[in-house]
């Protein structure tokens, strides 16, 4: 339901992720978004646009199948982060994101620590608002999972990208596939991260009973969607208490109520991924409803709700 002026007075949706000021806390999750959505969703209304993860060299994704439904509003994917490579990204892809006047957050990835430095060097002259460092994709054969699960490696990658970021804020997207998210969160903070995205997908497996084989071509995949929401809310809550930098909540957010829950649990902003697949207009609907949601909760600003969980 669209908020009306009689119900909602002067609700301030703006948020700050370190030095990055956004008009509102709603942005897409990397990999679940592209400028192709422009005909279905007003991209200029979003708080930020987050690109698919870019690698230095062009790379293919994984073997088919790459997707399967997991019930409970969830999906398992093993897309595997195909990338056009840094040069094509700069010349062909980034301009399509930048065309909407919304702050662009470029997600970068690598198969080894030095890869992150290479891509940051290659993108240093490009125009965009911030980095999101993807240390946590579970689909890669090497790199992603081990870097994101090791606090020392998270520190090294974060530090190196911060040093090459030309003053841009660096957001680090953590993996949930760790015993303690506090350790990797603190490592990223100590290395100079401006904010943390909590979190990437959970590693999962779908079984094809008849064939006695994994459903996905890559074997395992990343679980996303509404079914993981309680798991991620807990991670956001823990991470927000472990560090002083802002948290971007990501995982299972499908409704405006979910957005509010993540804010209460400690997120300053949120990312929407799987919900966009079933309804491409999801983020616009959340922006329509958020002022009313905040008003109903007695808040005039997003910041009034952030971290207000009484526990």
């Amino acid at each position: 339901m669209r908020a009306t002026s009689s119900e909602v007075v002067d609700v301030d949706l703006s948020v700050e992720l370190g030095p990055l000021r956004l008009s509102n806390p709603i942005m897409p999750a990397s990999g679940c978004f592209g400028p192709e959505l422009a005909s279905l969703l007003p991209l200029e209304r979003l708080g930020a646009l987050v690109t698919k993860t870019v690698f230095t060299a062009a790379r293919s994704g994984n073997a088919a199948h790459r997707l399967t439904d997991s019930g409970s509003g969830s999906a398992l994917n093993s897309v595997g982060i195909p990338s056009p490579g840094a040069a094509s990204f700069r010349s062909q892809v980034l301009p399509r994101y930048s065309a909407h006047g919304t702050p662009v957050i470029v997600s970068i990835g690598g198969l080894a620590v030095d890869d992150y430095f290479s891509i940051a060097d290659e993108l240093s002259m490009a125009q965009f608002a911030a980095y999101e460092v993807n240390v946590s994709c579970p689909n890669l054969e090497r790199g992603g999972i081990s870097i994101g699960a090791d606090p020392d490696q998270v520190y090294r990658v974060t530090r190196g990208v911060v040093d090459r970021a030309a003053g841009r804020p660096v957001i680090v997207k953590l993996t949930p596939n760790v015993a303690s998210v506090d350790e990797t969160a603190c490592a990223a903070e100590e290395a100079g991260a401006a904010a943390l995205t909590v979190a990437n997908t959970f590693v999962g497996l779908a079984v094809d009973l008849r064939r006695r084989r994994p459903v996905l071509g890559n074997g395992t995949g990343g679980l996303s969607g509404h079914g993981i929401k309680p798991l991620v809310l807990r991670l956001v809550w823990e991470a927000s208490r472990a560090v002083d930098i802002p948290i971007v909540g990501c995982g299972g957010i499908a409704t405006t109520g979910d957005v509010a829950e993540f804010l209460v649990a400690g997120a300053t902003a949120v990312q929407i991924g799987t919900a966009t697949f079933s309804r491409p207009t999801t983020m616009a609907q959340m922006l329509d409803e958020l002022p009313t949601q905040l008003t109903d909760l007695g808040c005039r600003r997003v910041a009034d709700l952030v971290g207000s969980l009484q526990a």
Partner: protein
Amino acid sequence: MMLQPLAAEIPSRILPVCIDAPVLGNQYVSDRYWMLRLDAPEIATGVRPGQFVLLTPSQTPGEGPSLPRPMAVYDVDRADGAIDILYGVVGSGTTQLTRFRPGDRMTAVGPLGRPFEPPSDATRLLVVGRGIGICSLTLLARERAERGHAVTVLLSGRHRGAIIGADFCDAVGVHARQLCDEDGSSDVESIRRLLVEQYDPAPPDFVATCGSKRLLALCRDLGRRWTCEVQVSVEAHMACGLGYCHGCAAGEVGRDEESPLVCATGPVFRVS
């Protein structure tokens, strides 16, 4: 088998829309097949043969299947602004689709993907479909028949009750031959003999197929024999339908470049 993307530019493409379309009808047809009719003038206006829509099985965000289901547009009533979707019930998502009743609304995104692109001078079409794959071919058969082209349709299925599209072809005046596994008539070599006999004297200038790898291989062979264009509509699991998620690509390990996307580069590909 090589599948080639069609030409780079999509002729006169309209941008997809996302609508909560009123359900006009949703009825059991036969075997595992159901027919859904949506009031979707924004899609009906521009949809072309071979294009598809994404249907969201759950109207409650965060509940039920998370991925929308790609469905070929079986038929369109451009005057009334309605589209028909013939779908097979095979899993949780399509089971949920059967629960929609007239008056409900269903989230639909479309039209999506590349349509069939017969050569501009093609007037003799052979259309070969099996099972649910026939749904990607019906609109092509109808629109070409309405232009006065010679269209022959082969409809293959597991058994008589599982052959779809026969009534449709009758209604639009297209000659359709039904083939099924239970009487052996769908055997590929039998079909090959039948088509060679019928078409060798005057081959078709365009072949369209969907729904069977064996029939695709047959169409490829016959296309080479007759030196005519063959195009196939490919099925895949999808999430975005627009090309940004890359969930539908048939990726190959070790390649430097991403494979063609079924949703945006396809679903129709040239067979060579």
